[in-house]
C-alpha cells in the first residue's frame, strides 16, 4: 500500500516537473481559461440592444420628428443615420450597416392633424433573426404606445372629437426576473463557463500525457515495474485534476470578484460535483488518447468528443429546451450537462444536496465508468 502511494506520488511529481519545465505550456494552461472567462463574461450578452437603425423621414415635420424620436429613446434601437430612398436602405442592409429601417411617409403631420392614421413602414433585416423578432415586437409595442398618447392628446385638443374608441385601459407588462434580477448575461454564463473550462483543460491534457509516454519509449520501462494500471491512470489524472481545480478557482474567484456572481448554495455540493466531473472528463481524455493512433487525431477527437459537445450541448449557453427532442436526449450522454445544472443551481438558485442529488449520482456513475474504462484500455495497450 505504501509502495503504491509512493509510486503514485512519484508519477504526480514527475507530471508537475514536466509542466513546470515547459513554462509556455503552463502559462497557456493557466491563462487560457482566465482569458476565455473574461472574454465570455464581458463580451457576450444575450440581450439584444442597440440595434442599428436608419430613418427615412420623408415628411420632415415636427410630428414626424417626434415620432422618430421614440425609436431613439427606447434603448433597443440606435439610430445610425438617415436614408433618402429604398436603394439607400437596401445598400445599408446588404452591407450590414443597419438592421432596421423606419420609413415615415410624406404627409405624416397632415394625417395627425386630421385625426387619421399614417402608414409607417418598418423594415427589418431577417439576417439576424433574433434581433429581427425582437425588433418586430418592440416596434409594434412602441407604435401602440405612441398611438395611445397621441389619441389622448388629440381628444384633449380637438373640440368635438368623436370619441368612438372605447375608453379602455391599457395593459402594461411588468417583468419580474428571478435569480438574476439585473439579467446580467455574465452571471448566467459563468457557472456554465466553469464547466467549459474544465473541458478545455481536458483537451490540452490529451495532447500531452499518453502521447509523451508513447513517444519516449518510457512506457516499456513502466511495464517492467510493479506499477499497476490503476496506479498509472490515477497518477496521470491527479496532477491535471489539480490544474483543473486551480483554473476553476481562478474563474470562480474572478467571477465573484469582478462580475458579482452570487453564491447562494452549498460549496460542498459544488466541490463534490466538480471533483466527480473533473475525474470523468480527464478520464475521457485518457480514453481518447489510448484509442487514437496519432496525436493529431487525438487532438481533433478531443475537440469533437469532449469540447464541442460540452460547449454546445450542456445547456451552458444554448437552452436545451429549444433543441429538437433527439438532441435533447443526446445531451444526457455528456457529463457536462449534469455539471452545468449543478453549477448553475448552486450559484444562482441556492441548490443543496436535495436538489441536485440525481445529477450527482449520474456524475458518480460517469466518473466510475470512465476511470474504469481508462484503466482497462490502457492495460490493453501494453504487452502487445
Amino acid at each position, binding site marked *: 500500500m505504501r509502495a503504491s502511494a509512493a509510486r503514485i506520488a512519484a508519477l504526480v511529481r514527475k507530471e508537475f516537473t514536466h509542466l513546470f519545465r515547459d513554462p509556455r505550456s503552463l502559462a497557456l494552461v493557466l491563462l487560457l481559461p482566465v482569458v476565455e472567462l473574461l472574454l465570455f463574461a464581458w463580451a457576450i450578452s444575450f440581450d439584444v*440592444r442597440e440595434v442599428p437603425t436608419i430613418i427615412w423621414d420623408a415628411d420632415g415635420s415636427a410630428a414626424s420628428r417626434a415620432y422618430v424620436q421614440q425609436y431613439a429613446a427606447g434603448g433597443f434601437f440606435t439610430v445610425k443615420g438617415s436614408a433618402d430612398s429604398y436603394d439607400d436602405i437596401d445598400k445599408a442592409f446588404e452591407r450590414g450597416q443597419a438592421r432596421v429601417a423606419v420609413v415615415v411617409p410624406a404627409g405624416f403631420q397632415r394625417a395627425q392633424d386630421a385625426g387619421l392614421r399614417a402608414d409607417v413602414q418598418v423594415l427589418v433585416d431577417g439576417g439576424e433573426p433574433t434581433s429581427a423578432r425582437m425588433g418586430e*415586437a418592440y416596434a409594434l409595442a412602441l407604435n401602440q404606445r405612441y398611438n395611445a398618447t397621441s389619441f389622448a392628446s388629440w381628444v384633449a385638443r380637438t373640440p368635438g372629437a368623436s370619441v368612438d374608441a372605447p375608453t379602455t385601459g391599457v395593459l402594461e*407588462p411588468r417583468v419580474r426576473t428571478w435569480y*438574476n434580477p439585473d439579467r446580467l448575461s455574465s452571471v448566467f454564463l459563468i457557472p456554465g463557463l466553469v464547466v467549459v473550462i474544465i473541458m478545455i483543460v481536458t483537451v490540452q491534457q490529451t495532447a500531452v500525457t499518453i502521447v509523451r509516454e508513447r513517444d519516449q519509449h518510457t512506457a516499456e520501462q513502466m511495464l517492467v515495474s510493479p506499477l499497476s494500471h490503476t496506479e498509472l491512470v490515477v497518477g496521470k489524472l491527479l496532477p491535471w485534476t489539480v490544474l483543473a481545480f486551480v483554473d476553476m478557482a481562478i474563474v470562480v474567484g474572478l467571477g465573484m470578484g469582478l462580475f458579482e456572481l452570487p453564491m447562494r448554495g452549498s460549496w460542498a455540493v459544488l466541490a463534490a460535483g466538480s471533483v466527480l466531473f473533473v475525474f470523468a472528463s480527464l478520464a475521457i481524455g485518457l480514453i481518447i488518447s489510448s484509442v487514437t493512433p496519432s496525436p493529431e*487525431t487525438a487532438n481533433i477527437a478531443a475537440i469533437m468528443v469532449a469540447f464541442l459537445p460540452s460547449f454546445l450541448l450542456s445547456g451552458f449557453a444554448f437552452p436545451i429546451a429549444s433543441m429538437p427532442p433527439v438532441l435533447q436526449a443526446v445531451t444526457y450522454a455528456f457529463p457536462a450537462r449534469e455539471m452545468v445544472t449543478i453549477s448553475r443551481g448552486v450559484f444562482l438558485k441556492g441548490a443543496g444536496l436535495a436538489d441536485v442529488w440525481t445529477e450527482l449520482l449520474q456524475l458518480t456513475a460517469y466518473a466510475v465508468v470512465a476511470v474504469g474504462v481508462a484503466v482497462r484500455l490502457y492495460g490493453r495497450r501494453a504487452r502487445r
Partner: protein
Amino acid sequence: MNGKRLRLLIWKEFLQLRRDPLFLRLAMAMPIIQLVLFGYVVAADVTNLKTAVIDLDRTPASRTIAASFAASDYFNIVARPDGEDALRPLLDRNEIALAIVIPAGTQASLERGEVAGIGIVVDGSDSSTASVGTSYASRVIAGYNALPDAGPGAKASVRVVFNQSLRTVNTMIPGLIATIMMISVLAIMSQAVVKERERGTLEQMFTTPISRGEYLVGKVVPYMVLSGVQALFVATIGTLWFRVPFYGSVWVVLTGLLLFMLTNVGMGLLISLVSRTRQQAQQMMMFVMLPTMILSGFIFPIESMPDAIKPFTAAIPMTHALVVMRGAFVKGAGFDALATPLLALAGFAVAIFGLAVVLMRRRLSE
C-alpha cells in the same frame, strides 16, 4: 520553383495523410457533427416557450388575455396553476421558461380606463430565453392593446426584408461553412511544420535542393485541397439538409472562402512556426480559435457586445468572412456591396502570409 520537386512534395503529403485513415475519417466526420450541433443547437429558434398562466382575475377580459397568449406561436401553455407559490418548483425544475400572472382586478382596472399591470415572471438564470420571452410577451400585450383604427397615430406595418422565414439556420449555415473551414485548417496546419521539426525530418529536407518556397507551397497545397473538399461537402449537405436558400452569387462565396482559407492557412503556419513542440502548437491553436469563434459574431451578435470590444472584432478575419457568407447567402449581396469585407480578407491574407514567410526564413534556419 521547380514543378517536379513541388509535385513530389505534394505527393508526399498526400501519402502521409493516407497512412492515417482515422485522421481522414475524422476530418470528414467532424463537419457533419458540427453541422448537426450548430444547426440544431445554436440556430434553434426560440419559440414555443413553455409557459404557465396564472389567472387571478377570472373575468372575461382576463380569459381573453390568456387566450391571446395561447394563440401565439411563441408560447406553449403547459400549466395553469392557481397561485404564484406553484411557480418556484416549476421554474426550478425547468418545466416552464416563464410565467404570465394576471392579477385580480385587471378587468376592473381596464374598465376604469387605468393602466393594468400584467406580471411576466422569467428565470433570469437562463438569460437568452428570458430576454426573448420578455419581448414576445410585450408583443402579445401590444397586440391586445391595439386600438381600433380611429384617431391619429401611426399604423406600423412591419416587413421582414431578407430571410422572411426568420429561421436562424439560414444564417447559421453559411457562417458554419466558414467556421468549419477555419477549425480544420487551423488544426492541421498548426501541426504541420512542428511535426517535422520534432521528428528531425525538417533538417533533412533542407539539405536537399528543395527551396523554402517549394517547401511552403508543398505543405500548404494538399491541405488547401482537403479543406476545399470539406467546405464543399459542408455547403452541400448543410444547404440541402437544412433547406437553406441561396440567393447570391457562387463567385462571391468562392472568392470569400478562398481568401478566408488563405488567412487561416497563414495563421496555422504562424502557429506552427512559433511553437517548439506539438503540444504548444495545439494549445496556441485553441487560444486563437476560441476568441475567434466568440468575437466574430458567429454565435453572439456583435451589436450586443460592449462598445469597447466592438472595434476589436474588425481585427478578426472571421468577422469579415461571416459578413461575406451571410451577405451572399441571405441577402444576395454582390461584389459591390461586399467589397469592403472582401478587401479586408485579402489584406489579412497578404499580411499573415507575409509574416509567415518572413518567420519561416528565420526560424527554419535555426
